[in-house]
């Protein structure tokens, strides 16, 4: 099973800045291992972010996103105590959701 994400969601005024770190190899499918065998592609393809249960952002990613991906976005009209959740899905069907409370 994949390791948890780290989600920091901080309110300033009526905006919430969300920073997410995801634990993922983001293997491009272009690299070879020591034996010269191609390492199969394995990367996050879809990301969904919700604010109090409502989808506010979705993303499609390719293998060019760096290993252990970072994502920052700003939710309008949020406040401390709100819930922000992020879900990723990778090309092998792996999936993970984590949630944070806005501070």
């Amino acid at each position, binding site marked *: *099973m994949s390791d*948890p*994400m*780290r*989600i*920091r969601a*901080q309110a300033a005024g009526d*905006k919430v800045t969300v920073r997410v770190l995801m634990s993922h190899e*983001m293997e*491009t499918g*272009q690299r070879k291992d020591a034996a010269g065998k191609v390492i199969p592609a394995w990367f996050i*393809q*879809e990301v969904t*972010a919700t*604010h109090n249960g*409502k*989808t*506010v*952002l*979705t*993303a*499609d*990613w*390719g*293998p*060019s*996103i*760096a*290993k252990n*991906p*970072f*994502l*920052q*976005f*700003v*939710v*309008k*009209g949020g406040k401390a105590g709100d819930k922000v*959740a992020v*879900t990723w*899905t990778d*090309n092998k*069907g792996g*999936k*993970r*959701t*984590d*949630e*944070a*409370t806005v*501070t």
Partner: protein
Amino acid sequence: MQTRREMLARSATVAGLLAGAGFLPLSAMAAWPQAAFDSKNMADAVKALGGGAPVESKDVSVSGPDMAENGAVVPVGCATTLPGVKRLLLLVEKNPSVLAAVFNVTDAVEANLNTRVKMGQSSNVFAVAMMNDGKVFFAAKEIKVTLGGCGG
């Protein structure tokens, strides 16, 4: 002021959501725009996503360092001040897969996203804004990738 640790502690795992997931239905996988990610340049990627010819615009911005010490992780961002944006794209001109990310934005988030990309070599990075009315605008920034360390 809260310490980072306290903030981290509040980020809780939603294990329940994982439990029932199992394999994804094919319909969910099909949503990923394969053709766009297979494109070899910005125009083709935009076209594959249903957009027209991109026009350079001061109202779109691409952020990032002028120079990256390592191409494996390069912080980049895309933003626009234009109203009515549907999608923001990040592309790395000289990567094998030019398109790095497609952000489908809603009115509930600012049209300002930051992430980190891999860059095989020094290259232009493009931010593209695809608007609700079908127009497409872009901005470019050159990021130099240097070689740090012993190189062995």
